């Protein structure tokens, strides 16, 4: 018999994150490194423990190995508990056969027994795609006060951008009367953050009905939420104010990293009252040599900087040799930039070698046509040999030889 939990969080971490291309070739999107030492999933997990939610199911499907390894016992987030704690929940085989998670709603449906053992009042559904710090307990409190069946967190976006989001149209009391998925002509600028609080008993009923409907795609946004609204369930929007960023694309991932270097961006990673926890590298402090210049950058442990680093984020164990230049770039763990190489506007994944004198990425002002410009990406374990060139917007997944352009 498990102790009752008021709220169980279910974190949807099965997505491939196909718009991150080379970066999610071998890992699930929530495991993508962010911010010099974190991975995306550190944010929802840390938010959970900081909000007092101690039971978290992580639904994995695509490339789960690295993500499962990373979560481990949950100890870095204080989520290694006797009964509660974090549980990785992959699809599994039953007597009647096995199913992949067909959609976000189906993933929760298949784990009804996991949720039931905690007999919760509420279920919090989260995604592993966003960078934000949020107190979920405030949202649950608002949910209770409204006597809602479902509460959806929303954030105000620019009206011009609203057509890129799932928009919620609300009455003055905050109740939702319409879902508008990527509307051509938006009626409101309240974008869904993909964070839902449900009364568990009503969610369970809708999940079961949804499963019985062969036409359904078993998706929260497309099927379950509209069905609840059609039935006249009490659904409310919960306004969130603060930093929130989707990191589902190369450009947004790059921007979200650069935001950390901008003191005006309201994302304080060093706030001791709301720490973001992560599995630590345990490496010694990083070394800045007397030949180095470092400006407006973020650098983590174990690194060795002998060259020039500006407006960049360096993860643990990154080496930048003498004469090498790293501007406006993100260098993930273990990457080595050799002498006189030049890395600009690039995301370099884990354990990449950038050979002597190689050039990766370009500045937008150096382009003949800005349409051809974009952040260059080099995938995990790739070697860019000495003298090779990787152009702007390139997506490099295999080694690049010297004298070759990619």
């Amino acid at each position: 018999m498990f102790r009752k939990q008021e709220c169980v969080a279910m974190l949807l971490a099965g997505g491939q994150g196909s718009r991150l291309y080379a970066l999610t070739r071998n890992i699930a999107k929530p495991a993508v490194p962010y911010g010099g030492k974190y991975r995306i999933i550190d944010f929802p997990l840390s938010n959970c423990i900081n909000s007092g939610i101690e039971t978290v199911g992580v639904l994995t499907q695509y490339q789960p190995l690295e993500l499962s390894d990373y979560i481990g016992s949950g100890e870095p987030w204080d989520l290694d508990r006797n009964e509660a704690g974090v549980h990785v929940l992959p699809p599994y085989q039953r007597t009647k056969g096995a199913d992949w998670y067909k959609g976000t709603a189906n993933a929760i449906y298949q784990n009804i027994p996991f949720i039931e053992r905690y007999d919760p009042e509420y279920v919090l559904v989260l995604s592993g795609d966003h960078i934000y710090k949020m107190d979920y307990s405030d949202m649950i409190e608002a949910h209770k006060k409204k006597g809602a069946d479902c509460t959806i967190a929303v954030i105000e976006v620019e009206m011009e951008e609203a057509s890129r989001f799932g928009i919620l149209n609300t009455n003055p009391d905050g109740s939702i009367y319409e879902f508008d998925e990527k509307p051509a002509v938006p009626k409101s600028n309240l974008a869904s953050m993909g964070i839902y609080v449900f009364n568990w008993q009503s969610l369970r009923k809708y999940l079961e009905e949804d499963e019985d409907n062969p036409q359904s795609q078993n998706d929260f946004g497309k099927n379950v939420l509209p069905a609840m609204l059609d039935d006249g369930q009490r659904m409310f929007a919960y306004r969130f104010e603060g930093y929130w960023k989707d990191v589902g694309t190369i450009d947004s991932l790059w921007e979200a990293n650069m935001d950390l270097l901008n003191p005006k961006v309201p994302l304080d990673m060093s706030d001791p009252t709301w720490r973001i926890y992560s599995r630590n590298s345990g490496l010694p402090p990083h070394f800045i040599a007397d030949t180095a210049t470092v400006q407006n950058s973020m650098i983590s442990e174990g690194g060795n900087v002998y060259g020039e680093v500006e407006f960049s984020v360096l993860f643990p164990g990154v080496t930048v040799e003498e004469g090498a230049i790293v501007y406006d770039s993100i260098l993930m763990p273990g990457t080595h930039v050799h002498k006189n190489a030049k890395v600009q506007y690039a995301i370099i994944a884990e354990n990449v070698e950038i050979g002597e004198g190689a050039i990766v990425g370009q500045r937008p002002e150096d382009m003949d046509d800005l349409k051809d410009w974009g952040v260059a990406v080099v995938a995990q374990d790739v070697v860019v040999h000495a003298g090779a060139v990787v152009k702007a917007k390139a997506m490099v997944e295999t080694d690049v030889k010297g004298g070759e352009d990619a």
Partner: protein
Amino acid sequence: MSYTNVMGLIFPNMHDETLRDMTSVRALGSVPFGGRYRLIDFTLSNMVNMGVSKVGVITKSNYQSLMDHLGSGKAWDLSRKNQGLYILPPFGITDESYAGRIAGLATLDAFFSNSKEDYVLLSDCHVVGNIDYEKIVDAHIASGADITVAYQTGVIPQLDSTLVLSTGLDDRIADIAIGDSGETTGKYAIGLYVIAKALLRQLVHSAVSRNQMHFERDILQRNVQDMRIFGYEVTEKTLMISSLASYFAANMALLDPETRAKIFRTDRRIYTKVRDCCPAIYGLKSSVSNSLVADGAVIEGSVKNSIIFRDVKIGENARIENCIVMQGTIVSGSSTLGSVILDKDVWIKENRTLQGFESYPIFIEKGATV
């Protein structure tokens, strides 16, 4: 062979007097070092890296900070069901706290009886290094020694407690001098011993019954003729802490890439307690050279030849040179510091100037405001 047959015993309060300023609030073993470590991390990691899975830490006084640092031992993989990390505070048979190593060992009967290991590695915390302890135990067993004393050859630390060894051809120790022997260079012990558990217990009991409470004098020196006491020369790079000046020099030695590579080896890691700080942030006007910087630091000013610990803030136009700045310390804008050791949580207000000298660094105590 499997080193599950060896247990570790660490003495974090030994040599507290060498860093009086810093050990007034903590044991020597929990003195901060190298940007994110405590001195105990080195011997503890060396033990874990050789496969030791049971370690007792024999504390005597001022051990709150040490207990906070060690926690359950998880950071060293010593949070185990069987074995693991044991903090062994004074047992309190008498009103006096431990006079020395022997008094500490004498209270460990239950701990020893519940241990299946046959050998004990005894270690102090004043030597920083990545030392292959396995080789020392191998040598101990191969030589058939009763006690093996690890030593190094070189300039002898001038301390009252230094053991200066004279050894024969086979490294058997012929004579031990304690304190100033008049020699300036030679073989000196580094506070690391291997001994069979049964023999250690017997020697401790015999010493206590004669009120002989000094391990080095009453057990090692007294028995040098009658017992097989062997030396083992440690050849790894070490940094010895025997004074504030040598503490300062040992930290600064880490700025040398070769020394760093020898101590922070990738195949034998040095573990420490994790703090969830975000990576170090360098501001637009920062200028940093030849320095070690830990996570959580925010640097807006100029830093040269320095060791910057976690969560340190260096304000705009502040200038830091040859400094050790410990966790949580704030150096406000436009202050200038040279050759200063700043303990934890110090606050240097704006426009302050402090200038020490490399061989005589200024020390600012924990929590002070300047």
